[in-house]
């Protein structure tokens, strides 16, 4: 497996091998699926749309609907305006969404289609919406695309001077529906009314009922997005993913924001809870304290298996930082932290975490790829790899256990229903990590050393 990856590391300036990121539009598609009655639309040639729907379907094992402008060579030369116009008409006629959320591809971006102008010129039925964002694939990553779509919703719909509604706007970051459910559970327990944008719970984890719904029950309501300007504040979870959109809402409607890491592990969740508590001004309910206490109990129980273990973590910037933060709390050493997404903030935040825990000799890299990560591992081995499915070849080649967290996980089931965030999510991370390490011990130790009780 991966036999051609040399141990010796040579500098690469041009070729990316086995990327730890993908392109913008799929993030925008995912964000748009988190709005109720919304159909994502890809303005480009149809191959992108097919690929992005596949990516999401393979991760969630659920339908991922989206339409495309289906550019041909003619449109690519003369502009895709009429393609978009035709598409919007057909979509409202046939698929009846309340809103079409348009994103772009490298094709329409390179030719410079002016979507603002195209949308203004369009005949949009009463009570329906067409919004857009620009998502050039040659900038940033899928995470950037997610952020851009969230900002797009705000730009089109949120109004300044909206009546205060006493709600908190939560921007969830690029996480699973299971995490979004966890946020809602926590806010509910703390009696904090929220609007979460986007919210893919109920959409990408919809139940089996025997009846297919093109627009499932879940998703942020369009009316709630329109009222975001009336929120008390925004809690932006995942600094790199959510802060830019929170800033758009602040500029546009004056809603102040607090930006924090994804609530993964103890301290980040503590901070999230305290932020919510500041608003509710009520005591944190016992059920949350109980969860927290259970988590700490577990962390102490499992420490002999996690303490001092070296781990390589790859994936999206906020997710990697969140996992690394919890790994450090478990006494683990996040030897390598890699994201494919560009941005110096990732490296700065990663290094700050290491410093806080007094851990040295670890490497943090943005714009890295899995080829490089593998080379590092060949040079200095780790005990565990945490990341998406694409880590499995490295795991097998080097005989290191892999724990699947993040995007995409296309070779396992159920994961998207389960949170990694909050105290419950941390318990799940702890279980996955400890079980992987203990399974490894069971299958690799000498027969005489197999333990019945561990």
């Amino acid at each position: 497996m991966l036999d051609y990856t040399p141990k010796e590391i040579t500098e690469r300036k041009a070729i990316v091998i086995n990327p730890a990121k993908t392109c913008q539009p799929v993030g925008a598609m995912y964000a748009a699926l988190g709005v109720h009655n919304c159909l994502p639309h890809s303005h480009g040639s149809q191959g992108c749309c097919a690929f992005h729907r596949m990516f999401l379907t393979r991760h969630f094992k659920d339908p991922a609907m989206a339409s495309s402008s289906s550019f041909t060579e003619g449109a690519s030369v003369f502009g895709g305006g009429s393609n978009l116009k035709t598409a919007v008409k057909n979509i409202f006629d046939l698929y009846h969404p309340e809103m079409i959320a348009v994103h772009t591809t490298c094709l329409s971006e390179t030719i410079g289609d002016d979507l603002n102008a195209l949308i203004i010129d369009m005949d949009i039925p009463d009570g329906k919406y067409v919004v857009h964002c620009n998502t050039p694939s040659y900038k940033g990553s899928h995470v950037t695309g997610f952020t851009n779509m969230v900002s797009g919703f705000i730009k089109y719909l949120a109004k300044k001077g909206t009546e205060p509604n006493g709600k908190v706007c939560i921007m969830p970051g690029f996480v699973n529906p299971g995490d979004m459910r966890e946020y809602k559970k926590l806010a509910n327990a703390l009696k904090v009314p929220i609007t979460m944008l986007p919210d893919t719970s109920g959409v990408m984890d919809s139940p089996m009922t025997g009846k297919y719904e093109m627009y499932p029950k879940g998703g942020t309501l369009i009316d709630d997005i329109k009222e975001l300007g009336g929120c008390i504040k925004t809690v932006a979870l995942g600094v790199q993913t959510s802060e830019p959109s929170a800033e758009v809402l602040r500029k546009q409607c004056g809603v102040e924001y607090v930006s924090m890491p994804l609530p993964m592990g103890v301290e980040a969740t503590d901070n999230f809870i305290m932020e919510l508590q500041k608003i509710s001004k009520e005591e944190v309910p016992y059920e949350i304290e109980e969860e927290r206490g259970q988590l700490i109990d577990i962390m102490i129980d499992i420490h002999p298996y996690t303490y001092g273990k070296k781990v390589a973590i790859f994936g999206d910037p906020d997710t990697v930082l969140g996992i690394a933060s919890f790994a450090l709390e478990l006494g683990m050493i996040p030897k390598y932290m890699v994201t494919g997404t560009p941005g110096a903030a990732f490296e700065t935040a990663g290094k700050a975490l290491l410093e806080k825990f007094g851990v040295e000799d670890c490497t943090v890299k943005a714009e890295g790829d899995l080829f490089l990560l593998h080379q590092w591992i060949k040079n200095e081995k780790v005990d565990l790899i945490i990341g998406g499915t694409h880590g499995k070849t490295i795991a097998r080649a080097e005989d290191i256990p892999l724990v699947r967290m993040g995007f995409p996980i296309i070779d396992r089931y159920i994961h998207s229903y389960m949170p990694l965030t909050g105290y419950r999510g941390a318990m799940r991370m702890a279980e996955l990590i400890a079980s992987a390490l203990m399974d490894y011990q069971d299958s690799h130790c000498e027969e005489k050393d197999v333990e019945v009780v561990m």
Partner: protein
Amino acid sequence: MSSVREKVLEQYSSRVYKNRKEHVIAIGEHEKDVVTANTRAIPGIITQRGCCFAGCKGVVLGPIKDAAIIVHGPIGCAYYSWGTRRHKAVADEKNGEKADCYLEYCFSTDMQESDIVFGGEKKLKKAIEEVVGLIHPKCIFICSTCPVGLIGDDIHAVAKWAQEEYEIKCIAFSCEGYKGVSQSAGHHIANNQLIRYIIGTGDHQPEKKYSVNVLGEYNIGGDGWEVEKILKRCGIEVVSVFTGSGSYRDIKNAHTASLNLVQCHRSINYVADMMKDKYGMDWIKVNFIGIESCKKSLRDIGEYFGDEELKARIEAVIADEEDAIRDEVEYYESKLKGKTAALYVGGSRSHHYQLLLKDFGISTVLAGYEFAHRDDYEGREVIPDIKPDADSKNIESIEVEADPKFYRVYMTDEQKAALEEKGVKINYYEGMFKGMDEGAIICDDLNHFETEEFMKILKPDIFFSGIKDKFVAQKSGMLSRQLHSYDYSGPYAGFRGAVNFGRDLVMGLYTPAWSYVKAPWKDTPCIEGTLGGDEAC
């Protein structure tokens, strides 16, 4: 059945109706079954189609294991075509020559904004230099994506440069996603470059008397290996496979084989035809999907070579393979007989699998292709009637001349006529329609709306399609099996494959979870007793 067709189509606006009515037909409804195909998709209709890049890199080139394929473009295209199509391969040695296998790797120039603005040729050259330095491939392919054509990067000049600079094979493919109307354009572009630059450049001669190439077999889930195993048992040498577990090493010798076997007509018929013109090699359409079609394909090969000893060996292999699966096939047939199916796959499987379904007593109520052409539906005899439109005209169609060194005549016209008498058609594909039941619905470029509407009316027991459709169907309570990825199972080709297929269908239809879809409280009273004389609920 024609009312079924109308019931769905009449819901369209007149503009869409006018377009779609020619793509959706019912078999036998008109005097002649004619369908419109290979035209542009309607924007916003929710087509399942992909693009030219997917057809070229993803389908035809991707499986060539010893070529390092550099995707020139932003990261997405390379990423999505990384390991997601199940064309299996292993590095191996043949004729003393090793073929490496790079399929676990994804190479991309990861174009950034500055590359779009200032051009990406420099970065592409550097990327090639780095790949050569790291893994030393004998062959590099460059595949372009949407923006490359727009900004005017000359990838062919770069390929030429690389070939001289590093003394390796380097071929460029201008397969920008916007070319043509579907994956199909990409097949054609890949075919052109294979015949131009690879086929005919090797000189290793086959060792056995009877040798073939298997064209349009991508070894999904090990299909190609199953086919090769059977052919080998019959004493037939497989010179090369296009392109499942295929290699630059083998494809360069393809012209030395005696016969081409075409499994997927759509994706590889260009190579088959051009090899006919250039080397005189005939091709026959085979289908190794389905027990009866497998037998027919093997017997056709025997007839083509006309050797009694070979024919006897083929019969012995058929008898043996059938013997080994008889009990299992009988069991699965007993569980599947009488069921109905709808098939919507890319450009060939919607036909091939109908024959396998027949082996188990399952009939087809709807079939369609994403991107096939009229000849795949109606048979190659309609090719002269197909008019190229604006979208397909700019896909290069190349002419080849008889090769002075390698051209030979394998069979005289009289011999061919005699074979046709026996039902073995040379250089011909009959298409999907012949042999389909009267009234079956045909849907070219089936979209989401039509999928939902037709499934509601026809209610097939199984919907065979791809990943984007699968969960749509299953949410509505209908089993869906993927005929692109085989739901991570397979092989489905050959005799053993038929059994795997039967097993997977039985497992899918009889899985207990289907019976729990409705919660018991939905149709059971929740409170015992009465309230004010009325039933409580």
